């Protein structure tokens, strides 16, 4: 993403931005006009003309006084609202570009940095319309208008004012550049550094305490902060110099107006008396000189203009910060995907037209010939909700034909193409699920959700000469370009229970990430006979679900942490699933589905987090499920029980790929894959 693209995202569209700008210009024009009209009024009044001659000036003074305040109020409202609208677009724009990268293309992005980038920099970008574009445009428009008015009265004074304003513009921005360019450049990375160190300190407080390293860390932090302080002060000095320069030029512009205006007035008086005529009422611009009121106007207008023009150097300073933030935002989001990350089709154009309830967002133009598994109605309908009564029928898949875009309904009334996942992905989603629900009617509704969804059959997976490597940005574990997986041959029939074993770094997680298309692969990987590369990654992920090693728990309540896996699930469904993963008592103890789980699941233990993740997998009902170390943080005496529960919950139709370094009872698996260390 280029800096210009970020800036374009940050600047609200003209349609949004224009009202604020127009009103802003009206407000500043009123401010200048108020002082000019007042000066005119007073000087004219000194001639003691009939009061009638002053009435227009009096009305003008009052109108401009009201106008200044009213326009300013509207201006602030309109421009802030436009800037906030821009912020929403910016956040969304950045997030969209992160989606295809996550997670493996982002692995090396440091968290504290991400925080500072996406919160700080994006907020900073809001200043582009508010503090850069609007004040600059307004000031320039008003300055030009004032120069023209003064020039009409007295060209020399107009030129002097123009020179002073131009100098103020140049000097203000130049001085600003000189003194604070460096400070600005240093400031944002230093702030990010400080934020990183602070985050390390806050997160590692227990470690630092236990290792008596608190004082050293605090000293480090104080050093970083004092560097930050120095840069901040250098910038303040720059801003101060700028304000001083503007103040100086403003005073000099007034002095210049006197210098040119007084002789012109004297000349005007001389010319008028020479002509032997009394100056008529009004702004008598004589060929040689000017009137008294005109003198007052050209002397006072510069003061009013400069009051507004003071915003220009500030806008220049704001611009540099905005640009720096934009550059950093741009660098956080690379233009091109690393080759190790599969490309996602552009989806943003489709999203707008797809109703929010549809959860498979990637329609494909033609139905893909995926074999349609028709479930054996007997085990599905006979399956009792409790694990004890569950059958262990493995590998009894019957493939019948290929899928059309429409779901098929088995005699038992169970929706085969449930969620459109795996078959006819094009129209899939919760909408169809809801449709199916409506069709199956009250009878189905009475049954627990888990029972209803266990009708799907998994496509077979074939891996031939499979290889994969991690992007260079994520080189924590391997040297760049080093394949993490090489020449893997494997057939996973429908309904298999595959155990993947191997030491750390042997590519177990790599394999899991390839299967859900987080990582690109070489060789061949087919799902139901279709090469995965030819499918959209999201389609693959609708068939193959991954339960990550460290499942992410959102900072929300338990219900929200489950519901996104299946949004049509009722509370009873959720509780049933929690019961399945042996979390029901725990959940009820904490207030049920409304229990908060804390930031990144800080209020749940590792084992509980795994169980919540399992519950999500069950709810989402993937035909193929990968568990990456599901028992890593679970008690040994519960491991076997959990594995049994889990495999039974998966049902006989589903393929389960289990990545584990703990022993798994032989009866539970049908297939084993042992990965060795690849590379060094």
């Amino acid at each position, binding site marked *: 993403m280029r800096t210009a693209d970020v800036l374009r995202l940050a600047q609200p569209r003209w349609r949004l931005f224009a009202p604020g700008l127009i009103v802003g210009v009206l407000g500043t024009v009123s401010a200048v006009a108020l002082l000019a009209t007042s000066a005119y009024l007073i000087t004219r009044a000194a001639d003691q003309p009939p009061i009638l001659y002053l009435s227009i000036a009096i009305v003008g003074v009052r109108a401009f006084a009201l106008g200044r305040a009213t326009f300013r109020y509207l201006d602030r409202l309109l421009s802030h609202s436009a800037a906030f609208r821009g912020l929403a677009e910016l*956040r969304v724009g950045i997030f969209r570009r992160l989606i295809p990268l996550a997670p493996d293309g982002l692995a090396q992005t440091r968290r504290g940095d991400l925080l500072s980038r996406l919160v700080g920099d994006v907020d900073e970008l809001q200043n582009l319309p508010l503090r850069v574009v609007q004040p600059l445009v307004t000031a320039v428009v008003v300055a030009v208008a004032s120069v023209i008015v003064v020039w009409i009265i007295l060209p020399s004074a107009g030129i002097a004012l123009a020179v002073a304003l131009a100098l103020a513009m140049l000097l203000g921005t130049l001085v600003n550049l000189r003194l604070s360019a460096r400070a600005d450049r240093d400031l944002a990375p230093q702030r990010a550094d400080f934020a990183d160190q602070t985050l390390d300190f806050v997160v590692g407080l227990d470690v630092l305490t236990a290792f008596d390293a608190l004082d050293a860390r605090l000293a480090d932090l104080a050093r970083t902060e004092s560097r930050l302080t120095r840069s901040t002060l250098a910038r303040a000095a720059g801003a101060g110099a700028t304000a001083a320069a503007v103040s100086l030029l403003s005073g000099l512009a007034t002095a210049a107006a006197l210098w040119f205006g007084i002789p012109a007035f004297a000349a005007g008086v001389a010319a008028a008396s020479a002509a032997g005529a009394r100056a008529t009422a009004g702004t008598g611009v004589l060929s040689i000189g000017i009137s008294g009121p005109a003198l007052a106007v050209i002397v006072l207008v510069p003061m009013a203009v400069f009051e507004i023009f003071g915003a220009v150097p500030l806008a220049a300073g704001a611009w540099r910060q905005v640009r720096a933030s934009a550059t950093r935002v741009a660098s956080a989001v690379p233009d091109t995907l690393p080759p190790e990350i599969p490309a996602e089709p552009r989806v943003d154009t489709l999203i707008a037209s797809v109703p929010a309830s549809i959860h498979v967002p990637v329609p494909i133009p033609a139905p893909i010939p995926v074999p349609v598994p028709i479930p054996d109605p007997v085990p599905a309908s006979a399956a009792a909700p409790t694990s004890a009564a569950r059958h262990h029928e493995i590998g009894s898949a019957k493939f019948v034909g290929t899928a059309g875009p429409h779901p098929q309904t088995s005699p038992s009334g169970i929706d085969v193409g449930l969620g459109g996942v795996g078959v006819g992905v094009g129209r899939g989603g919760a909408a169809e699920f809801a449709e199916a629900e409506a069709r199956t009617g009250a009878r189905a509704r009475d049954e627990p959700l888990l029972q209803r969804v266990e009708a799907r059959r998994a496509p077979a997976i074939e891996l031939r000469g499979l290889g994969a490597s991690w992007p260079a940005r994520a080189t924590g574990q391997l040297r760049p370009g080093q394949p993490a997986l090489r020449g893997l041959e494997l057939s996973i029939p429908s309904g298999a229970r595959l155990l993947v074993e191997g030491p*750390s770094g042997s590519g177990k997680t790599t394999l899991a990430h390839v299967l859900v298309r987080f990582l690109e692969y070489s060789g061949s990987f087919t799902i139901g006979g279709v090469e995965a590369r030819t499918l959209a990654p999201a389609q693959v992920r609708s068939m193959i679900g991954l339960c990550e090693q460290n499942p992410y728990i959102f900072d929300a309540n338990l219900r929200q942490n489950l519901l996104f*896996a299946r949004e049509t699930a009722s509370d009873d469904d959720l509780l049933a699933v929690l019961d399945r993963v042996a979390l029901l008592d725990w959940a009820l103890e904490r207030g049920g589905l409304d229990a908060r789980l804390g930031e990144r699941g800080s209020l749940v233990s590792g084992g509980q987090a795994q169980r919540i993740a399992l519950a999500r997998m069950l709810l989402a009902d993937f035909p193929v499920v990968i568990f990456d170390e599901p028992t890593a943080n679970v008690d040994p005496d519960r491991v076997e029980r959990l594995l049994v529960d889990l495999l039974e919950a998966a049902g006989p139709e589903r393929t389960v790929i289990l990545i584990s370094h703990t022993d798994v009872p032989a009866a539970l698996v049908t297939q084993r894959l042992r990965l060795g260390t690849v590379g060094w």
Partner: protein
Amino acid sequence: MKPVDPRLLRYAGAARAFFGFGAVLGLAQTACIVAFAWLVSSSVVDALHGATPFGWRLVALVAVVLLRSVLVWMMEWNSARGATIAKSQLRQQVLRALPRLGPSWLSTRSSAAVTTTLTTGLDALDVYFARYLPQLILTALATPILVAVLFLFDFASGITVLLTLPLIPVFMILIGWATQTAQKEQWLKLGRLSSGFLDVVEGLSTLKVFGRADRQVTRIRSVTEEYRASTMKVLRLSFLSGFALELAASLSVALVAVSVGLRLVSGDLGLGVGLFVLLLAPEAFLPLRQVGAQFHAAADGVEATEEVFAMLAGAGAGVAVAEGARDADGTAGSPTGSRADGRLVVNDLTVMYADTAAVRRFSAEFAAGQLSVIVGPSGAGKSSIVAAMLGFVPFGGSIELVGSGDSSERKASMGLTARPLGRADVAWAGQVPGLMAATVGENVTLGSEHPSPALVTRALALAAADAPDPALAPSNRLGVNGAGLSGGQAQRVAVARAIYRALERGCRVLVLDEPSSALDRETEARLIAGLGQLVADGMVVVVVSHREAFRAAAAHVVRVGAPIAARTVTPAAAPGTPTGTRRIAVR
């Protein structure tokens, strides 16, 4: 917000001198303003009356203009400096307060939110210290002087200004009341929005698995739109006070201009005075207008720092707890004594979180020279026992080191040489590795004053973190929170860090919480072998683990049940363990 928040001035005492100097500069500037207005108006009037020589006035005018610009520069610099110093002082106080609040306090907070408060949150105070406060001081000094000057020259204009001026604070207070609650809500929303956006970004891979990532676009948009709508609701009111301010100022200028004009027509007033008053009247409003313009931004800043004050206040109250748990700190035993006889005795340990007991009356004994393993289901309080050993949580009961290592005390009964376990006695690795942005080596030597590369190598080897793995090389640089390592690698580096400390400082007790949860069996076996060496050296090694391998390797297994009870079991195949046969009764 009160005009001046006393807490801010108290905590940021070092900045007071700058504000005093700012007041002096403000007075000088007020004098410049009066002089400038007088010079300009008298020049114009003299010219109108036909007095052409105005040379000395022009020189004086330029001199005043120069002085004014220098004063502007000094004021900017001075207030920026004051603000920076005030902020830094506050920040350092909070950073120092955090350890006093302790890890258990932090676990109830979002670390991102705390970090934001400490960085960008405090930056919100810039407006308060650099803009608002100096202008407030200027208002207090300059406004009365300018009003007095107005009275001196033209009584009627003085009255006009004097009557309109108080309207500003009155309006502002009224509008301020109306917006105060709305502002509080907005700040809460801002925090939620900022951590909510990050939450979505961090959970992106999970969302992708469930095909929900694209849907978040809608959510981000709606949350931001909600934020915009609610902020605009506040701003509509907030900007009203700005409106009142501008209106009062410009109307009073209009009133002065019109009344001066009318009195000029009737001949009651000279033009010189009229112009002078016209120039001075807006200046009388300027400082107050600036205060008003900064008021809401400043109030937002103070609002943002409520959290900071809460932390500072909390730290004050939390001292007793944390100190109580830590008072054994300084009393660590001599590090190099023969440790073989040490015993760690936990008696009647109870840990409460709010009203729930995480650990209730847990008693156990961990002897030196044997590997002790604590097992139990999740939620049984294993980690709370560890937290109590480290003094991270307040607890009831006692945790003591018994038998200080003199071999003549070999037969000394328990309790004779008992002393509370201090933090200096313990080396620890928690469930979360807690690595930092530094090299692997720097992470391992955390807290060491004289890092020893040889000891780093040894510690990494004992922690099974010495594979020919470039990620585990001591020179490998990690990102924030140890980014760049896999879970298993980070775990082993954290264990190596604990071992390093134990070896360098001669800690009596090594406590590891689930050190192998992310390790494969081979690596786990090597880790157990490494720990075996430390056990053989006479260290008290306590491992919380659910792994079969650790249980099998343990000479002593302590089982923690549900938070009700704990009992020890002695594996049948553990002959000759000195304390293994001792059953610790509970309840």
